[in-house]
């Protein structure tokens, strides 16, 4: 009896939920749709907790076979769910945050004409994400990977009546296509190289077949990493995530902050055996992550839209995770993934709560003074903000410090001023900016006096929105305690050993603890927060007053506000040539060559048809017509004997009788 036999239920519940809403969604009211969808998510969370309980007894994990032999042509692969510490951690995060966001969405989507459809998509997303994290092979991982992309597309464009939203959805889908193409190439290369796609077989063979730095492994990991840059919005494929904020806020929180975008980090952590064999890829991963972290953080400082700030912040935090994974600190990366899921979901949801309360006003210039009108939202936002900024004891502090400590350790180990140092410096600089932009957002939104009537008339939102916020706030404050280093004074001994490290760390190495680095990053966080207070908190922004940063940074601010002109650059370098090529192909190939050929064939056929028509008309019709015409003329003349006069007939009769008589007379003699 497989102790993990119940795990597939975690997929069954949301599938049931979405089927129920799919079939009965029109008839059920909002209340029942919400109950089914949230219930499905909550039951999944229950299964995840059950899995955790089982896993604590059987730490080596297990497998649940779903389909012994999946055959696609010559390609044959068993489909199974892999249950281990990493998968269980992801399951807990996905279903936990997912359930809370389902509840939040019941309040947020109230009155939407496509209420049922929204929850169908959300449940579908849960299924997809769980398939992604539970897969025991790269094929199933890819299935989940694409399904979450589909859900992302559907939900970004949920309000597709506005063309802007539909465009954002297409952009997200197309940019992800670039990454996914590389990803599937990587998967194919894995199959070609190892003859299998199952994690266990691939990883065990990788260590035997290849030494570190083998070109095939480097290529595989690079291709997979390109896929991760698409999904996790890293340079150069990050451009879709800010636009993805066009979707409803619960979607931004669940898919584009807490879960889907972390799929790349999860995938790298899962493929750790391969990445450890490819030092070149690892350094590239670390570099990209670190550069993205700083790059996005600088943009976030100059944004005005609450959700845009959060979007760039997400890219930046994903950069941290990717950098951690690149440095080999998989535990730290996953740790940050967990805490980030909580505090970023919290921040997004409170941003959504603000927008909900202020009549969909997301521009911070038009807000202000909301700490009085929306006290609960204000409090939870501060908790989330502290978590994001890395203020001590809040969740983000522990995970971010684990990453920074890991980076510093990498630098110390290699000794010289190596790439570890640069990674550490970049990440530290972004830590400062992180505190700055989140502090700026807090002071602008909640501090000072209301700058518009909308902000003045704001009111606190209902329990469906408030309850998930409170629960998430609890997690954002406390989630860090699962990963407190043992050596940490006071808290370390109090909480016992580093639970996360013991749990997930069995698969991965240990994250080092360095008090100097920790102190430095705390100082940076406080400095950022102080800077935000200095700029925005000390003298609150009045209505119509320009951002003090504009004066301080000058042209740099314009550059940041326009996101380094990244979209424009892509439009010029990639989109325009592609469109130009497509236009050329369209005019030169399609219109001229293919259409010309087709038109030629068409014209020839037309000529041929005309010739046969002439033959028909002249020969066939003419022949038949002349025959009938002659028949008609003959009968017209012959008809003349039918006069209708009795005597004419009698004369004919007499004449015939006479002729007959004469003939008889002549021939019978």
């Amino acid at each position: 009896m497989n102790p993990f036999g119940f795990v597939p239920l975690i997929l069954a519940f949301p599938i049931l939920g979405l089927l129920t809403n799919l079939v009965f969604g029109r008839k059920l009211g909002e209340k029942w749709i919400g109950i089914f969808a949230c219930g499905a998510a909550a039951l999944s969370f229950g299964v995840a907790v059950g899995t955790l309980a089982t896993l604590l007894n059987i730490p080596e994990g297990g497998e649940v076979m779903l389909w012994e032999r999946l055959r696609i042509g010559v390609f044959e692969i068993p489909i199974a769910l892999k249950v281990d510490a990493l998968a269980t951690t992801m399951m807990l995060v996905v279903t936990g945050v997912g359930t809370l966001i389902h509840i939040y969405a019941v309040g947020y989507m109230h009155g939407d004409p496509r209420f049922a459809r929204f929850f169908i998509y959300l449940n579908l997303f849960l299924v997809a994400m769980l398939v992604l994290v539970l897969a025991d092979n790269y094929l199933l991982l890819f299935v989940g990977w694409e399904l979450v992309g589909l859900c992302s597309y559907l939900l970004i464009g949920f309000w597709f009546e506005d063309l802007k939203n539909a465009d954002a959805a297409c952009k997200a889908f197309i940019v992800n296509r670039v990454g996914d193409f590389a990803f599937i190439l990587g998967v194919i290369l894995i199959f070609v190289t190892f003859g299998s796609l199952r994690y266990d077989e691939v990883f065990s063979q990788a260590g035997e077949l290849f030494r570190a730095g083998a070109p095939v492994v480097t290529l595989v990991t690079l291709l997979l990493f390109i896929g991760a840059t698409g999904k996790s919005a890293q340079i150069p494929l990050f451009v879709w995530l800010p636009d993805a904020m066009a979707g409803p806020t619960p979607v931004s929180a669940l898919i584009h902050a807490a879960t889907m975008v972390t799929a790349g980090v999860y995938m790298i952590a899962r493929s750790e055996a391969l990445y450890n064999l490819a030092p070149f890829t690892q350094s590239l991963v670390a570099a990209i992550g670190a550069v993205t972290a700083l790059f996005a953080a600088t943009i976030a400082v100059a944004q005005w839209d609450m959700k845009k700030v959060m979007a760039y912040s997400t890219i930046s935090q994903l950069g941290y995770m990717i950098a951690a994974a690149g440095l080999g600190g998989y535990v730290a990366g996953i740790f940050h993934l967990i805490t980030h899921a909580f505090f970023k979901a919290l921040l997004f949801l409170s941003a959504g709560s603000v927008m909900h309360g202020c009549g969909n006003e997301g521009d911070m210039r038009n807000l202000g003074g909301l700490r009085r009108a929306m006290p609960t939202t204000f409090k939870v936002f501060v908790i989330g903000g502290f978590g994001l900024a890395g203020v001590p004891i809040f969740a983000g502090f522990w995970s971010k410090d684990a990453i920074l400590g890991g980076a510093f350790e990498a630098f110390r180990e290699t000794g010289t001023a190596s790439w570890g140092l640069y990674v550490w410096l970049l990440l530290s600089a972004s830590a400062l900016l992180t505190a700055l932009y989140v502090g700026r957002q807090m002071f602008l939104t909640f501090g000072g006096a209301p700058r518009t009537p909308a902000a003045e008339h704001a009111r606190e939102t209902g329990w469906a929105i408030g309850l998930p916020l409170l629960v998430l706030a609890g997690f954002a404050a406390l989630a860090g305690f699962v990963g407190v280093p043992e050596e940490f004074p006071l808290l370390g001994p109090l909480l016992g050993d580093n639970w996360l490290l013991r749990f997930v760390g069995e698969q991965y190495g240990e994250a080092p603890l360095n008090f100097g680095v920790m102190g430095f990053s705390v100082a940076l966080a406080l400095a950022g927060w102080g800077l935000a207070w200095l700029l925005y908190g000390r003298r609150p922004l009045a209505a119509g007053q320009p951002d003090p940063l504009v004066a301080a940074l000058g042209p740099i601010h314009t550059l940041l506000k326009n996101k380094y002109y990244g979209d424009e650059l892509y439009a010029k370098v990639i989109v325009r040539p592609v469109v130009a090529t497509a236009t050329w192909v369209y005019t030169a190939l399609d219109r001229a060559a293919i259409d010309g050929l087709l038109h030629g064939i068409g014209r020839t056929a037309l000529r041929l048809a005309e010739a046969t028509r002439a033959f028909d008309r002249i020969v066939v019709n003419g022949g038949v017509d002349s025959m009938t015409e002659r028949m008609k003329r003959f009968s017209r003349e012959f008809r003349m004997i039918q006069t209708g006069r009795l005597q004419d007939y009698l004369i004919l009769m007499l004449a015939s009788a006479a002729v007959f008589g004469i003939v008889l007379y002549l021939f019978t003699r």
Partner: protein
Amino acid sequence: MIPLAYPILLSALLFTTGVVGVLIRRNAIMMFMCVELMLNAANILFVAFARAFGQLDGQVFVFFSITVAAAEVAVGLALIVTIFRTRHSIEVDDLCELQR
């Protein structure tokens, strides 16, 4: 005893008169009477030959012929009367519906 040629000649004369009458008269009653003339020409021939050959068959046959002619006259006159009632004319040239 009159020679056989005389009744034959008389019969031929009567028959020709009947034929010409049928062909040239437009009045249905007149045509009808001419038909009777032709019938009686045949009767004369029957009687003449019967006497010449000394057999009674021909004379008996004439009785049949006269009886049939009487029945025929009854039917024919009834038809003509009916036609006259419906059309107020017994000109045969007017009776040409089928030709139209």
